[in-house]
């Protein structure tokens, strides 16, 4: 579905060259929920920008459905941490925005936007402006916007990081439900280990800069939506610990590098 082939990304920052990503090889399967977790500054957001076509790789290539990514496209929907809603448009208008980009006829736009706002449970808030919505609601609108133009892949860049813990838990369940219902491929970036284990069928752990894929962990938790409290499940604790161990060295390394004054991207 999505293939990263030896992807490398180099930035020029204040005269020095920073390698953000190096030798990324990763395959995301169709319909899969893949979480990428890594220490801060490891280039995981850069990786997502590359997949979204918002930046270009210095070398290597990214294939979506066998086609090389050369720019943004409506086969991929990006959800940002800070929602990125247009403040002068209502929830409905914001969802329609993506459909306008796809040149969907006006009447169909309105109907589809309503349908997807229903899906994220915001039918009653259609006419609200972003400043009248809570953070969680804003992110629901953003998710509805990305789903409405029917991309094959949803690229999510720490979408719940700015939300409080309770809202985040609620939205995680909501996202899993939506994922099961729509069958989209989801690439989800986070720095939260619990979030990674809770959501991901597979979790890709990244190294500190230059970012590489350290290991991809299968998380075959079958009873995701059935279990009452998955987080207290011993199996959950096992995976949590495994990923924590993989990450610990990287977090330390990242911290040391930062203290040594290497330019932070």
């Amino acid at each position, binding site marked *: 579905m999505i293939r990263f082939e030896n992807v490398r990304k180099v930035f020029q920052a204040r005269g020095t060259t920073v390698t953000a990503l190096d030798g990324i090889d990763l395959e995301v399967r169709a319909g899969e929920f893949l979480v990428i977790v890594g220490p801060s500054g490891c280039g995981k957001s850069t990786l997502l920008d590359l997949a979204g076509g918002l930046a270009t790789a210095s070398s290597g290539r990214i294939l979506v459905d066998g086609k090389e990514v050369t720019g943004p496209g409506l086969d991929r929907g*990006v959800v940002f941490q800070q929602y990125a809603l247009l*403040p002068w448009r209502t929830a409905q208008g914001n969802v329609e925005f993506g459909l306008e980009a796809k040149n969907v006829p006006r009447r169909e736009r309105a109907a589809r936007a309503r349908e997807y706002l229903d899906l994220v449970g915001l039918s009653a808030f259609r006419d609200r402006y972003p400043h009248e919505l809570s953070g969680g609601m804003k992110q629901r609108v953003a998710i509805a916007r990305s789903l409405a133009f029917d991309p094959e892949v949803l690229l999510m860049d720490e979408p719940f990081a700015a939300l409080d813990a309770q809202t985040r838990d609620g939205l995680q369940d909501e996202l899993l439900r939506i994922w099961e219902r729509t069958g989209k491929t989801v690439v989800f970036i986070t720095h939260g280990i619990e979030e990674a284990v809770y959501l991901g069928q597979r979790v890709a752990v990244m190294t500190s800069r230059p970012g590489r894929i350290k290991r991809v962990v299968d998380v075959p938790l079958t009873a995701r939506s059935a279990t009452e409290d998955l987080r207290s499940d011993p199996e959950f604790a096992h995976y949590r610990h495994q990923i924590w161990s993989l990450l610990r060295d990287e977090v330390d390394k990242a911290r040391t590098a930062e203290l040594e004054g290497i330019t932070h991207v």
Partner: protein
Amino acid sequence: MSSATETRVAIKPRVAVVAPPSPYGWGKRLLKVAGTLSTRLAAVVALAVVWEVFPRLGLVDSVFLPPLSEVLADWWQLLTSGRLWENTEASLIRSLSGFGLAIVLTIPLGLVIGWYQPVANLLNPLLEVFRNTAALALLPVFVLILGLGETSKIAIITYACAWPILLNTISGVRTVDPLLIKSARSLGLGPLRLFQKVVLPAAVPTIFTGIRLAGAYSILILIAAEMVGAKAGLGYLINYAQYNFAVPDMYAGIITISAIGLIVNQLLIALERRFSTWRTTS
């Protein structure tokens, strides 16, 4: 103080008639409204009282500052004789032409400068020089080149109005949230639609702030321009009255111009609010 009590008394019975049958909260609200209204008017009323009483008591020379009532009587006479309207019309035409021209010319220019970095780099130093030169300092230049007629007056107003609109348009375009642009780009929007659907709407409130400032300038500069070689207009009226020692006429002109300034500003504020409701509390 009489006018303030009058308005309060006048408002009370009207609201009481409209009030619903269970008007427990209404009394309180009414008091509050009356309270804010009287606070707002207090200073203006105080000025009016001082203006009326001081000349009458001989605290100031009533030749140079006639009591307010006399000025108002004179204003009324100017109004009924048609002289006031004649001059106001001349002023409004100049002011609105200059203001309108500034809007039409500078918004597109500002959008281009804001959107294209090379254009901005090229023009910025020039803009810095001109924005820091008082518009009125250039009035003699305008008169020299364009003569004493309407052209130079409208031109100087256009010039003065252009700056706040231009600078606000540029900063409106420049300060669009980069995340919105990134998000729109991720949807595959081309540069033209990105500009139309994201940059322009995002910049509207900032542009409107510029337009509102320009509205105020259009009146301020107008008067100064009309004091130089005009044959009609409120600035002319004020200046002419002063030369001929028709002191009440002069004050009547001043009151009219400040009333117009006030009305124009309130209109533009209302318009600005309408176009930027989404920006409140966001």
